[in-house]
């Protein structure tokens, strides 16, 4: 069973009315092509100013009906869990009350559950409607054909065609890319949300095939030739991508992050009822060029314009390929698939938290840019360094709950972040003192005492061992050592 556009909007309106300290509903600046208002909802708890934002988008393709329902249900589930101080389970995937509290008190969670309301209305319209409608409802002048594919209309290598991207409004692909980049009000709303909020992670939820997708879509992704950047490609050509055989660069660090996060999302989905979501780049879905997609666009923004934040853009394809496309797009019972989707999205939200950023910037107003610079420019350049980044990203969420539950630990964490920031700022001259090491190890020991998770204990002891050998060394040497010796894999 699928909700109507007005029912989806009602969920957001009711959440904002019932829980104004938790949820704000916002009408976006661009109404749909047929004049319908389009709403987003922000969920956050606790105080504080600037936060990392996560944006979940659904319903861009009208016929993919399950995802708008899943996204509004997820928000309702999170609100109820937070207010009742209870955990949340989807099948065999569970999150504790503390997990939910951390997510809502450290992030701004944005949803745009029904990005294409006209299209959804048309799918459900009992006279003249079409359940296989995909695009918005633009009347393309001079043609008998309606609709623009909103997921081909973003300003990213726009106008380059492929197996599912066309310049012809009457194309049977149903993937007409529109007259200009962001010609459509519905896709402009995504640009608006990225421009006006600190969106660090984005997911565009589609159906079907059980994929977790990451960039790129216009070309195969490679991590070795940094001269191959999309800003040099010809766009608006209404022709296939040139040069032939082109592969787009992604930094090894970002590629590793995409694969790691996607794998964690897929692992969580598997816990629900055993479904195996496969990791792929967007290009691999049809083994051909897809341009103007939202998930590529949001990730490309910081490359096209260095003054913009980096946003990791993901796309999900929810639900199995049943072999019957009607049942794949619109299963008679979408509930199990929605549970998979909600688990995957919650896993992604959880992965969007950065403990150092939160403790440093949000709680104590410290810029952590120098730490980020060392991570991205030095550690991320080697496989071993990326191993340490991966370890940190793995343990930060369970440990953040412990830290935030104890004010003394929170203050100690902030003191350590401040010290690391100082060392990172002066890294060529600074020495990691014996006191630094002792203080760091004491903090880690305290965390190890309080966690019950064996894997986290092992990771903490790996970090402690490394720290012990770092006293009296200059920061550059310590970083070089991290970049050479990978942390032992945690397989327990």
């Amino acid at each position, binding site marked *: *069973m*699928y*909700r*109507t556009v007005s*029912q989806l909007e*009602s*969920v957001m309106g*009711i959440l904002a009315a*019932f829980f104004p*300290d*938790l949820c704000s509903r916002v009408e976006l600046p661009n109404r749909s092509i047929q004049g319908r208002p389009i709403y987003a909802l922000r969920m956050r*708890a*606790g*105080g*504080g100013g600037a936060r990392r934002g996560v944006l979940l988008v659904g319903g861009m393709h009208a016929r993919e009906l399950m995802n708008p329902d899943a996204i509004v249900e997820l928000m*309702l589930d999170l609100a*109820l869990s*937070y*207010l*009742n*101080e209870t955990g949340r389970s989807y099948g065999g995937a569970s999150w504790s009350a503390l997990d939910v*509290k951390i997510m809502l008190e*450290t992030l701004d969670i944005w949803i745009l559950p029904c990005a294409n309301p006209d299209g959804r209305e048309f*799918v*459900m319209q*009992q*006279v003249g*409607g079409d*359940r*296989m409608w*995909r695009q918005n409802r633009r009347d393309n002048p001079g043609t*008998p*054909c309606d609709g623009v594919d909103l997921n081909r209309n973003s300003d990213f290598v726009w106008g380059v065609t*492929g*197996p*599912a991207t066309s310049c012809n409004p009457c194309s*049977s*692909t149903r993937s007409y890319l529109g007259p200009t980049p962001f010609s459509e009000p519905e896709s402009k709303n995504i640009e608006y949300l990225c421009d006006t909020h600190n969106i660090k992670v984005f997911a565009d939820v589609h159906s079907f*095939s059980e*994929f977790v997708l990451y960039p790129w879509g216009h070309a195969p992704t490679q991590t070795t030739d940094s001269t191959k950047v999309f800003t040099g490609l010809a766009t608006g050509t209404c022709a*296939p991508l040139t040069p032939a055989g082109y592969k787009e660069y992604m930094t090894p660090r970002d590629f590793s992050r995409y694969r790691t996060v996607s794998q964690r999302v897929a692992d969580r989905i598997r816990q629900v009822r055993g479904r195996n979501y496969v990791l792929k780049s967007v290009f691999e*879905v*049809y*083994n*051909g*060029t897809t341009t103007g997609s939202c998930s590529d666009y949001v990730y490309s923004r910081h490359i096209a314009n260095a003054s913009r934040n980096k946003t990791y853009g993901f796309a999900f394809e929810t639900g199995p*390929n049943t*072999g*019957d*496309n*009607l049942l*794949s797009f*619109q299963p*008679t019972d979408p509930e199990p698939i929605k549970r998979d989707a909600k688990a995957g999205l919650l896993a992604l939200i959880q992965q969007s938290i950065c403990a150092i950023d939160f403790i440093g910037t*949000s*709680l104590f107003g410290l810029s952590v840019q120098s730490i980020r610079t060392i991570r991205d420019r030095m550690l991320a350049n080697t496989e071993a360094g990326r191993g340490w980044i991966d370890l940190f990203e793995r343990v930060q969420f369970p440990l953040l709950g412990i830290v*935030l*539950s104890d*004010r003394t630990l*929170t203050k100690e964490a902030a003191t350590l972040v401040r010290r690391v920031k100082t060392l990172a700022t002066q890294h060529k001259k600074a020495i990691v003192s014996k006191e630094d090491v002792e203080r760091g190890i004491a903090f880690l020991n305290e965390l190890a005492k309080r966690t019950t998770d064996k894997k986290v204990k092992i990771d903490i002891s790996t970090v402690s061992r490394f720290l012990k050998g770092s006293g009296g060394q200059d920061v550059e040497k310590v970083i070089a050592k991290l970049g050479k010796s990978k942390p032992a894999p945690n397989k327990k």
Partner: protein
Amino acid sequence: MKRPKMAKSQQREPGSSPNVRFEGTVHATRSIKGKDWANSLDVDRVPDSKGRIKAILSIDDCVRLLEEGFELRLHRAQKIGPLDRSLIVTDKAFKKWIDGQLSGMKDKPMPEPFAETRDT
């Protein structure tokens, strides 16, 4: 399925096709030159677990592709029309669901946030 012999189709008026479309796979025959034929098919592609070129095809798509020399294997026909009314949540059912979800929540106080995330 062997490709039927067909006369060259005439341009159809929009809306003149029967009220049906097909789900099927498209296959190259010997007359199709080049390796990139799948990228220029102009069909509504859907993913296929076996890696085949699967699509939702209108009658016009079928005629065109056959004329271009492709072989089509049609798996099922679908009537063109809106989502079945029985799959749409009624307003009554929606109200019952949301009321059930929010029962007793209206004046629920907000939990105490972590000390450091409180507004001061």
